């Protein structure tokens, strides 16, 4: 694989063509998960626990089965027992038994909304009616919601077989703390002893949902011989196939998972909820079954990411140089272990060269839905704490927060707290671009404030497959294995076109189902353009080798004497002979006579994804009488490696910022005393609307990643890391009050301002 180092050599990469699936998506023709129908199809619906924690004593489907139109009812008893086993199927290693029991509760319902039974009927209305006719007897158990309450002695225990991992000696009592992780560097006590100033702060975040607009949906058809087709919206057709196979006990070869268009995921569609249930309903009824979640079900039973407590202690010299940092992260995992606390720990201090550090993370169970990946899982939470605290440190020292970041910034050669030594990183480049930005110099009005914050995400590589087919007319079909969640078809086609030297318009990309292309890990971890693009480029290179061979056959010269340039075969030099160049069209037309169809499929396990760094600038204005924050201006500066399709890179940056602003200001899960979610809808789960947002300026810093053929880094996740601290820092600049608890909703901001005002009045 060759690395194209200079921009001038690129013809397609870096341009902004129209995405190949665009017209279907602006005309309503694109087929998403819920848009599929099959002849004879039934509608499936789920009966869910009304209790946060309850033992299931009995389930009686009798009356539901008697309702005309009801064709099947399933409960846990219909599923095989899956032994505990850590499997690498989705975004993160997951315990298959937990996944199975999250799809359908076994002996206990562990959160309000936990599935306990499901029904298939001839219409949605009948299925809905049937749910009320399934009788479930519960013994309600005490529940626990908040992370530190769940960690406390005497808390209701969710699982009596979970013992805190990572402790020595191994505990003998079950605990809601599923895991403790720790990363250390240097001598933390020595580091704090060297500090001239130490500040210690505590921050909290609430669980927030990915809030993709498309609810989960699938159609599953299981034939009498066990062969099954799944049509569903997900971040990975192979993930759907893998989980479903294990949860229902079917062979992978018997499941064909077809990726529908996906209406947003942000990590939340890297696990399954519906497919195994629809499988069992289809198997039992002998008919295809469609299941579509309501918005309320999406909020109650899928996603969100962890709420957390973040404790940060920073020691520094008066010039702002950090001598020590200690971070403690307590993350909610929901009803089963598996919060992103590990990533939180690795990302917490990754941006800084801290000589002495200790990061400790706790993965904590509580009676909430099992958390799912959400855009840079774990990193935004940790960074909210660290980047806020760094701002507090800078204020305490009377230093410019940007300068403090520069002083401590990780550079090439810095050894990160969690282990790696950085190479080819662009953090400093983002700080320099921030300093140079017009935004940073723009004046502010009264009541306005400006904050900056940075973020890091490691990005992912991993397994990807791609096939490049040269069609009979010389056009090209590229088949990939990753659902296109934000324009990746365009970038795949662009990279293939660039490598082959043909126009973008002659390349048609498709997302293959599990029988059409080799295994590919999910669309997640900002990995598709990196790993998928690498697979596509390698396949294109193999195709070029083949095209050269075909030209060589035509010219009757050695393949080594053929050169591929601008989409044509040329004799490599005077010695090779004198021939008119052969275009792709000409070679394709003669393919049958030179050896048959021309195509190549490549499978890789991509390594060398470059880490992503970003620095954001946020201006806010606070209504000091109501506490409402208005985002006036926002600039995201990010090292994007190289932007393959700059518009979609900007789009990722802008989207991440908007989600981060929602997380910062208004989004939160609100529970009542009984552990029931009070805001399972878009009315009271307040994602940003168009009128809440300013334009989001983007600055793409390009520090190419030499491990990718065109220098790409993952770009999709890091933009959600800085916004919460950027907003908090801006609010502090505007008002003088420090908000340490998310969301920074008007009541909290107003209370903080009011609490400070008497002090100020006394000081005056």
């Amino acid at each position, binding site marked *: 694989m060759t690395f194209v180092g200079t921009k001038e050599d690129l013809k397609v990469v870096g341009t902004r063509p129209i995405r190949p699936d665009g017209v279907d998506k602006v005309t309503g023709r694109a087929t998403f998960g819920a848009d599929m129908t099959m002849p004879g199809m039934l509608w499936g619906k789920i009966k869910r626990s009304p209790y946060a924690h309850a033992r299931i004593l009995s389930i009686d489907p009798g009356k539901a089965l008697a309702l005309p139109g009801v064709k099947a009812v399933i409960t846990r008893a219909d599923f095989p027992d899956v032994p505990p086993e850590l499997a690498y199927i989705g975004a993160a290693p997951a315990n298959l038994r937990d996944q199975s029991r999250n799809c359908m509760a076994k002996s206990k319902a562990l959160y309000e909304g936990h599935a306990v039974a499901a029904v298939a009927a001839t219409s949605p209305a009948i299925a809905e009616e049937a749910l009320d006719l399934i009788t479930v007897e519960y013994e309600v158990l005490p529940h626990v919601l908040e992370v530190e309450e769940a960690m406390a002695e005497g808390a209701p225990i969710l699982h009596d077989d979970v013992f805190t991992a990572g402790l020595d000696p191994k505990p003998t009592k079950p605990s809601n703390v599923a895991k403790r992780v720790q990363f250390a560097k240097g001598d933390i006590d020595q580091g704090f002893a060297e500090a001239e100033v130490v500040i210690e702060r505590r921050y909290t975040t609430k669980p927030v949902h990915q809030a993709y607009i498309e609810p989960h949906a699938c159609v599953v058809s299981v034939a009498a011989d066990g062969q099954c087709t799944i049509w569903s919206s997900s971040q990975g057709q192979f993930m759907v196939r893998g989980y479903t196979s294990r949860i229902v006990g079917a062979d992978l070869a018997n499941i064909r998972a077809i990726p529908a268009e996906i209406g947003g995921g942000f990590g939340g569609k890297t696990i399954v909820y519906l497919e195994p249930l629809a499988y069992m309903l289809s198997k039992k009824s002998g008919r295809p079954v469609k299941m579509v979640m309501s918005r309320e079900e999406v909020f109650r039973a899928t996603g969100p990411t962890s709420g957390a407590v973040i404790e940060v202690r920073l020691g520094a010299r008066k010039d702002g140089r950090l001598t020590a940092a200690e971070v403690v992260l307590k993350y909610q995992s929901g009803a089963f272990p598996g919060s992103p606390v590990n990533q939180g720990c690795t990302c917490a201090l990754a941006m800084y060269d801290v000589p002495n550090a200790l990061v400790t993370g706790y993965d904590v169970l509580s009676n909430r839905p099992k958390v799912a990946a959400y855009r840079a899982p774990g990193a935004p939470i940790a960074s909210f704490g660290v980047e806020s605290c760094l701002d507090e440190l800078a204020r305490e020292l009377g230093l410019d927060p940007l300068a403090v970041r520069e002083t401590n910034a990780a550079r090439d050669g810095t050894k990160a707290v969690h282990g790696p030594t950085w190479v080819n990183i662009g953090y400093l480049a983002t700080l320099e671009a921030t300093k140079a930005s017009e935004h940073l110099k723009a004046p502010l009005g009264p009541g306005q404030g400006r904050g900056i914050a940075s973020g890091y995400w490691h990005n992912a590589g991993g397994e990807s497959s791609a096939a490049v087919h040269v069609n009979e007319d010389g056009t090209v079909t590229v088949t990939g294995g990753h659902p296109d969640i934000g324009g990746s078809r365009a970038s795949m086609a662009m990279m293939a076109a660039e490598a082959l030297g043909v126009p973008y318009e002659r390349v048609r990309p498709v997302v293959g189902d599990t029988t059409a292309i080799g295994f590919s890990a999910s669309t997640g971890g900002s990995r598709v353009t990196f790993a998928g693009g690498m697979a596509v480029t390698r396949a294109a290179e193999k195709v070029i080798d083949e095209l050269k061979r075909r030209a060589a056959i035509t010219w009757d010269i050695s393949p080594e004497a053929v050169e591929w340039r601008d989409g044509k075969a040329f004799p490599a030099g005077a010695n090779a002979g004198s021939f008119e160049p052969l275009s792709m069209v000409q070679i394709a037309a003669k393919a049958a006579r030179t050896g048959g169809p021309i195509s190549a499929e490549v499978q890789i396990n991509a390594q060398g994804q470059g880490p992503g760094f970003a620095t954001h600038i946020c201006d806010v204005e606070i209504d000091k*009488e109501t506490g*409402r924050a208005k985002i006036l201006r926002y600039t995201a500066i990010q090292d994007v490696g190289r932007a393959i399709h700059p518009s979609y890179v900007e789009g990722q940056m802008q989207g991440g910022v908007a989600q981060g602003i929602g997380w910062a*200001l*208004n989004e939160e899960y609100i529970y009542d005393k009984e552990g029931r979610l009070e805001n399972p809808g878009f*009315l*009271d789960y307040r994602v940003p*609307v168009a009128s*809440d947002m300013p334009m989001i300026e983007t600055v793409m810093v390009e520090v190419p990643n030499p491990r990718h053929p065109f220098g790409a880094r993952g770009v999709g996740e890091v933009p959600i890391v800085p916004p919460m601290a950027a907003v908090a820092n801006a609010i502090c600049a505007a008002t003088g009050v420090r908000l340490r608890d998310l969301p920074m909703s*008007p009541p909290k901001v107003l209370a903080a301002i009011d609490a400070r005002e008497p002090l100020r009045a006394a000081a005056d």
Partner: protein
Amino acid sequence: MPSLSFTAPTTVEEAVTLLASAAGSAKVLSGGTDLLVQLRSGRTRPELIIDAKRIPGLIGIREEADAFVIGAATPGAMLSACEPLIRAWPGVVEAVDLIGSTQIQGRASLAGNLCNASPAADSVPAIIAARTVCVIAGPQGRREAPAEAIPTGPGRTSLEKGEFIVEFRLPKPRPHEADAYLRFIPRTEMDIAVVGCGIAVMLDGTGVCRDARVILGAVAPTPILLPEAVEALVGHRLDEATLARLDAAAQRACRPITDKRGTIEFRTKVAGVLARRVAAIAFERAGER
């Protein structure tokens, strides 16, 4: 699930007969922007839905000598496009315009907003401030009631079985009279009011308030009229002292709850803030007339 029927009568009498003779619960459908959400969630399970929109007069605005007459099911978007109404009662039109999105504005009606009887309904404090009278049809014929008499608690109204509102009469403002409405929400759009405030004031030629109506929403089981706040305004110009008295009166009148949308403390404080801001707009408008 009881079976549901839908019907779209074309006369008021037909609708009254249907409503009065319905065996189970019957719901009048205007814009449907609350009713359909409640149907879907199962919060309401009527046996009959009566679409009022095909009854002549239920949609439309007509200007009479002394009043604007607004058909009960008239969508918000029509009010926002009615220039004479905007000139007369800008606060009413602004309040209606705050109900939900553009899409909601295409359907949502004054009657629906009032009869859904949410304490936080945006248009209700504004139409009360504008001294709106509801014309109600029922088995006993027609009657009139002031808008403030309709909601009696969250989700409850004073309408009797068989009754429904057919139109609203908004009297023309008196000389030097004007209104305003503001609400507080966490976002810029798409939220339910955490506090709403509608105020109408009538000034004399020198800027002194001669009459006023002050109404708060979302701080009590129904929108509430604030006589104490009226006292704070009447006989005064809008100076700092008046504003301070108004703020205090508004805060004292609040009987809010703490819920997912706001706390008692926050709602109370913001009620005072909004009262001041709304009064300032209303005084300015009245002064210009």
